[in-house]
């Protein structure tokens, strides 16, 4: 995240934050830390038999599988994302404007939807095999396990790297590259020694998102039956009377995710790239691809073909098949309403909870407010399954009234997605220097008028963008929704999951399509914001 905090708010420094604000910020932070604290407590009371289940070779193998998948997906998604970003923004590839939009679109496909479309298309006796049957192909190699999980996660996460890299390239000052060229270096050399290092913070942020997504992912790895932590935790939860091992495994996964976040922060902390002045605000000249034009087009077509056309085509085909078989649609409409309701509530409450954190961070910068901020962001690093399990345990034992209730699900969303609203909000507040308010006050405006005329209009956009992002993420969220939802409460994501995990792909198609359709609304809001401020995309 481009820390605009370098624009120090002089008046704020050293000033103490009002106690109610501090209390609110600490309260939100306490809520975020609650699940992890509970899991630690639960793990501490584990008995010998629970530990016996943990202390065995399988746990080591789970760790290796999880790390291996995360590393492979992150590398592949980064390579694809950076290449496509460069092609879309810097090259003269034919139709690059259209490609630029297409490359971002796989983002609307949740990994579990992508995974089941890949399974139904490329499975041993899937659609592709049916097409090839006349050629004597009786079955295709099995894609479950590592290949399937790797393919699904790479295809549906590379847009994170793509989007941040596009924003990074657009923000580059052409003068740097030009200086390199003038000094007589080749284009490739300049790219390697000037452009790439300049983009490193953006690429790193994108890679972090991919790594976290992979560690968090539950749907794709479960459908692909690839044994990672999330899959093992869910099995342990489903198929064991002693649920303490699930809590211990959850803690191990949480630790792994935190290590990734800290490592990325460290790496970024050392790297600083400035323009000394405002720089040159003119577009970069496209680089002619020459004979590389065809390979570039083939790569683009392949990624879009497997990452977008295939899933969408499969879904439409399954939909047609499902409709022909008389799959009822009415339940899906209810589920769509439920999804919108609970994601909307998540977005609103995340915004409310983010406000004290953002105000504290923007207006009262201090070491203490920075640590409050960091701690409140911790839920974002935690896998949804881990947060959900902690809340299930906690509520079933100590908060029976909240147990299996919508408010608890909304609280889980807030814990998990808080930074998605807090970051844009803080950035918005930083742009709004206290001087503006002071000027207004000297002109005799009251507090209410100042808020209404100056503060709200200026932070409305970032607030809306943050809320849209939470809405989008909550719509697609699977494990927490699955575990925490009230009895009989079905969202689109749980509908997709129930059918897809039972292998009833044609029944999963309708809710999956509706889910993608509904998530494109907040995505459009976000896209517009990205157009206005390329920096904004970093927050997703």
């Amino acid at each position, binding site marked *: 995240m481009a820390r605009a905090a370098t624009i120090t708010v002089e008046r704020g420094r050293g000033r103490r934050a009002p*106690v109610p604000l501090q209390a609110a910020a600490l309260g939100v932070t306490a809520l975020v830390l609650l699940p992890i604290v509970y899991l630690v407590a639960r793990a501490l009371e584990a008995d010998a038999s629970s530990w016996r289940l943990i202390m065995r070779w399988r746990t080591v193998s789970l760790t290796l599988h999880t790390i291996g998948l995360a590393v492979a997906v992150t590398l592949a998604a980064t390579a694809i994302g950076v290449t496509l970003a460069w092609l879309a923004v810097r090259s003269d590839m034919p139709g690059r404007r259209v490609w630029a939009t297409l490359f971002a679109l796989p983002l609307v496909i949740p990994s579990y939807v992508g995974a089941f479309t890949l399974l139904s298309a490329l499975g041993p006796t899937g659609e592709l095999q049916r097409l090839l049957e006349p050629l004597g192909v009786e079955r295709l190699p099995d894609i479950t396990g590592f290949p399937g999980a790797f393919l699904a996660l790479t295809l549906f996460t590379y847009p994170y790297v793509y989007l941040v890299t596009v924003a990074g390239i657009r923000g580059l000052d052409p003068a740097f590259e030009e200086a390199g060229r003038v000094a007589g270096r080749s284009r490739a050399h300049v790219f390697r020694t000037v452009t790439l290092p300049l983009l490193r913070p953006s690429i790193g942020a994108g890679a972090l998102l991919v790594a976290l997504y992979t560690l968090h992912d539950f749907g794709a790895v479960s459908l692909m039956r690839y044994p990672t932590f999330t899959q093992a935790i869910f*099995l*342990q939860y489903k198929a*064991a*009377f002693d649920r303490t091992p699930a809590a211990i495994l959850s803690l191990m996964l949480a630790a792994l995710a935190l290590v990734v976040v800290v490592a990325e922060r460290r790496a970024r902390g050392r790297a600083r790239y400035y323009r000394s002045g405002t720089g040159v605000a003119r577009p970069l000249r496209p680089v002619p691809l020459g004979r590389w034009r065809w390979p570039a087009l083939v790569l683009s077509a392949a990624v879009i073909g497997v990452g977008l056309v295939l899933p969408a085509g499969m879904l439409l085909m399954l939909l047609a098949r499902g409709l022909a078989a008389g799959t009822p649609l009415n339940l899906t409409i209810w589920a769509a309403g439920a999804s919108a309701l609970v994601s909307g509530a998540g977005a609103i409450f995340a915004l409310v909870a983010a406000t004290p954190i953002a105000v504290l961070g923007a207006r009262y910068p201090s070491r203490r407010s920075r640590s409050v901020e960091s701690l409140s962001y911790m839920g974002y690093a935690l896998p949804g399954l881990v947060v959900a399990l902690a809340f299930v345990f906690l509520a079933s034992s100590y908060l029976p009234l*909240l147990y299996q209730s919508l408010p608890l699900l909304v609280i889980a969303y807030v814990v998990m997605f808080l930074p998605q609203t807090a970051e844009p909000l803080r950035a918005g507040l930083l742009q709004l220097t206290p001087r503006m308010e002071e000027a207004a006050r000297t002109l005799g405006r009251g507090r209410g008028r100042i808020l209404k005329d100056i503060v709200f209009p200026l932070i409305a956009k970032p607030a809306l963008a943050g809320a849209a992002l939470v809405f989008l993420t909550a719509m697609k969220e699977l494990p927490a929704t699955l575990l925490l939802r009230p009895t009989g409460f079905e969202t689109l994501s749980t509908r997709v999951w129930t059918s897809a995990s*039972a292998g009833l792909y044609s029944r999963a198609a309708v809710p999956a399509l509706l889910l993608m359709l509904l998530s494109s609304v907040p995505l459009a809001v976000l896209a517009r914001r990205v157009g206005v401020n390329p920096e904004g995309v970093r927050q997703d």
Partner: protein
Amino acid sequence: MRGTRNQWGVAVLLAVVLASCSSEAAEPQGSSEGPGSITIYSGRDEEFVKTLFDDFTAATGIETEVRYGDSAELAATILEEGDNSPADVFFSQDAGSLGAVADGGLLAPIDEEILDRVEDRFQSDDGTWVGTSGRGRVAVYNTELVDEAELPGSIFDLTDPSWKGRIGLPPTNSSFQAHVAAMIVAYGEDETRGWLEGLMANDPRFYEDNGATTRAVASGEVEVGLVNHYYKYEVEAEDGSLPIENHYFDRGDAGSFINAAGVGVLASAANADGAAAFADYLTGDPGQTFVSEDSWEYPVVAGYDASVDVPPLADFAGPNVDLSQLGAALPQALDLLAQVGMV
């Protein structure tokens, strides 16, 4: 001083947040547990029991709130929830999960009148749960890929290396888990472990449930699947042209285990009368007629016949396992499945 003030602030805020949430939560929960509604934890698939629940509501006026899941998962959930459980009744796919909840002391006794109508073998000795339908374990196989003569008479022989890569099973499904529990009761833990390890050596493919396993057999993804006997008919009802057939293991073999789906009323039920009415409905004429006419399972009340499509229970009944003992063996079975690496 400052520190204390902050702590108070946090405490007050948390209290306010939780209180406001609880009051919101109380409403939907309260309404679902009012006199006219029961909360069912159903280990049985929605596609099989949805109409039954709807019929129950139509007949009694009692609304149902249903939480679906695997039976063992729901049993573990109820045990974790204890007296706080929102469930009024537990409708399980297998007797073991019911037994585990009963062993936790969380089930109330079933009415004598209900117990009297159901065959003894399909209810618990202590009257804490009662069966609603019987089901047998079979190997469903793909008729285009497997010759019936090739299939063994004993389930123990599926560990033969000739079955490598050809078997599918649902290790997280409680019907399979209860089958393993029954084998532990009948043959002991060591022999069961040996069988599971032999299966694992044959690289079985794992599926979410019986339905997914059966469909995988139908599509040829695997050749043989370990499932309940009625899935063949259910999947055929979706598409009649599929090449699947049931293989019944020898009479008395561990492979032909007979289990019961059943129902237990939670001791903590907010609507105990509604829950009792549900148990009465399932074991009464409407419930047993449904089993007899609209399913391929076995009725548990004398006088009702199973579908003509399925062989009589007596023809393939497996080892003599008292279903009341399954509950105690189920945790052991789950532990064993984890140890051999199936879950």
